[in-house]
């Protein structure tokens, strides 16, 4: 009972979300240590570089936050990146960038909608649906492109295409601007709209959401369309950077990085708790750590070991914090 009283006495304004303390401190500590160890770390060019590098991941992780918040996940994000890449480039060859972008991003959103309908209306497990979609869409990207990269994009569209992936607006890299806008939008959607609140309600307890009159099926369709749309935009940005259509652009560990960043940021894998700002924090933790280790000439193999350990550690820290809060119930 005393714990509850203490809980109540905290002013809401002062309350710091305990889940972000871990990754926040880790990020701060890393920046301090790297600044001391490497003279190249704390420079504008290095920070710009890191932020540009991690922009696609920021977008993917923001999208991945939606399904994870409802207690699901989206395994098809990487395949959507590949599909968007080849469709955008392929359509661009004959019809220019505008139609290419619409067709490419539209195709990715359609995949998200298909995920949503299968999960929300046919009530198939998200893991199964998106695992199946991972294979189907990876295959579709190969079929569309004939298994090879789409090069030779027409001038001047190709320059504008690159602008989205590697250009600058004043001193600020364009992909970073896109990522920032998308994170802001998704944050507002999650915190300020009824459908965003429904995402938390479904993740918190689907049965309660249903019994409160929330359209659970529609909410799930929305969730997977958001994830698909964000993956599509990430695919578009990535393709712009390589100014071509690549059928295996998203086949690497992009998907696992996106899920990992959301988890490191402190969004609960069981749903109901978390948000996109946390996911952005998770992306920064991974991006700056990898960057610093690179500057210190530590091998990428060791980096992978460290990233994996951080994922486990952050979930463990979160569960400690949580079991502390559930003990109050007893």
């Amino acid at each position, binding site marked *: 009972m005393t714990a509850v009283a203490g809980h*109540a006495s905290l002013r809401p304004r002062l309350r710091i979300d305990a889940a972000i303390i871990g990754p926040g401190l880790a990020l701060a500590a890393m920046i301090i240590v790297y600044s001391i160890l490497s003279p190249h770390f704390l420079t504008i060019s290095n920070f710009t570089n890191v932020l540009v590098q991690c922009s696609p991941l920021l977008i993917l992780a923001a999208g991945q936050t939606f399904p994870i918040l409802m207690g699901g996940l989206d395994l098809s994000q990487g395949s959507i990146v590949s599909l968007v890449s080849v469709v955008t480039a392929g359509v661009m060859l004959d019809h220019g960038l505008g139609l290419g972008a619409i067709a490419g991003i539209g195709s990715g959103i359609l995949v998200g909608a298909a995920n949503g309908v299968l999960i929300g209306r046919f009530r198939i497990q998200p893991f199964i649906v998106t695992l199946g979609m991972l294979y189907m869409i990876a295959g579709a990207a190969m079929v569309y492109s004939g298994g090879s990269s789409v090069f030779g994009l027409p001038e001047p569209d190709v320059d504008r295409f690159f602008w989205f992936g590697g250009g600058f607006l004043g001193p600020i890299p364009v992909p970073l601007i896109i990522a920032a806008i998308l994170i802001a939008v998704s944050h507002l959607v999650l915190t*300020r709209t*009824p459908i965003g609140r429904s995402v938390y309600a479904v993740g918190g*307890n689907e*049965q309660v959401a249903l*019994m*409160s009159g929330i359209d659970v099926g529609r909410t799930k369709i929305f969730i997977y369309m958001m994830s698909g749309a964000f993956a599509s935009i990430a695919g578009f940005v990535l393709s712009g950077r390589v100014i071509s259509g690549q059928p295996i652009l998203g086949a690497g560990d992009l998907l696992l990085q996106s899920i990992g960043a959301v988890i490191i940021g402190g969004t609960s894998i069981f749903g109901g708790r978390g948000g996109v700002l946390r996911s952005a924090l998770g992306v920064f933790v991974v991006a700056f750590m990898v960057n610093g280790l690179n500057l210190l000439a530590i091998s990428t193999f060791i980096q992978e070991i460290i990233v994996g350990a951080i994922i486990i550690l952050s979930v463990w820290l979160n569960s400690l914090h949580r079991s502390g809060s559930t003990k109050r119930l007893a």
Partner: protein
Amino acid sequence: MTDIDAPRAGAGPRAGDEILRVRGLRKTFPGVVALDAVDFDVRAGEVHALLGANGAGKSTLIKVVAGLYSPVGGEIALSGHPVKFTGAADAMAAGVSVIYQDFALIPYLSVAENIFLGNEILGPLGLVDWTATHREARRLLDLVGCAFPTETMVWELGTGQRQLVEVAKALRREARVLVLDEPTASLSQGESARLFDLIRALKHKQVGMIYVSHRLDEIAGLVDRVTVLRDGKSMGTFPAVEIDRRKIVSLITGHDTLPTRLRQSASHDEKPLLLTKQLSRKGEFEDISIDLRRGEIVVITGLIGSGRTELLETLFRARRPDSGEIFLDGRRYDSASVRSAIRDGIVLIPEDRRGHGLCVILPMYENIAMATMRRFLGALGLSRRSEIQHADTMIRALHIKPADATAEAGTLSGGNQQKVVLAKWLSTDASVFLFDEPTQGVDVGAKNEIHDIVRNLAARRKAILIASSDLEEVLGIADRVLAMRQGRIVGEFSGAAIQASGLVEAITHGSVS
């Protein structure tokens, strides 16, 4: 039924020896004294009935004896030796087995695997000896009178068969004390009769049994002694032959004479707002025709499994009726979903608070706003401030504690959680309120407050239908009572006719005196 193993203790207890002895047991939960100085004992070869209304402390007593709760005070002794269980496994090892109402069987394992779960018969290499397992399981199933193969998956079995598997499982553990919690709640007559035969056989083997039940008729002839709990206190232990039903009912309800009705019936419309005609759902309820008027509080009372919850959920459209019709305000009402039921002004405050009522990990204000989110839309989307403002109003009106709208709903006590669920639905402009066991697991103070809220709603011309098995609640709040038994309405009482004895009679026997 001759070869049930004798309990393992030494030469075995003789009939009448005290096996379990409980003295001065006390157990509290935040805000509630669940058990207060309870004395209770079980002798070898006896069936000891434990009776009481909902919330009287029966389940708590069982859970303490089973090692699931540790008591705050008092002692427990097994065959004269004081024991302190630190967990269910501990109690089982000492010979106390419980057969719970909600069966503790794993559906996707076979009957044999379930019986020996956590207690596997091992061969020389530490591997499970399947031949011996199935042979033993066969023997135990024969004992309890089950003919199906030991390889049968539990999900394939009906509830009655599962109950018997539970008994077989308890026998495997060589229970000295066997607790049966409402064992016939979901059994058919034939299955019940078989269970009673088994209980008599176990009696001969000097197993001591605690039999928890609401059904006064079935315990006659089966039990040796009766203990009645009320509000966490023991009302005494009596030999079954010396106590009649009338006395038991008065001990359970606490009314020596016919209770006085607390509520003065308010005036209400003549035209029903909600009306059902021959509503049926297979296996749940049948031929339900009820009417509900504005300003009226109607209570459906009945035992667990009588179909009350299913009926309310059907009115709320969480379930669809197989046949029959519902009319709302004179119009045929067949909205397809919970969403449209809410739009039509029908809301349900569910029995399973943590499962259906509120999201325990979300803050109070989000729970309260969950059904009315559009109300809090400003120019910038959902306004957290106006949601919190609204929650604060509700917190003050309903005296919710702690008075912090941002507190996680799961950290609140049961009564306050229930008030949060109520606040959610009071925020709508619904006209029909369905309550399923509105004060279950709620302390007395909060209970009275919730009753006040319900009366207030009636005064505001809402139509109210409550499912309750809490006799005191039924008597205190109802304008009209419908007694339900095995899916049917078996009696209707209103005004001065609402009396404890008649209600108990109707819900246990189905007859209206």
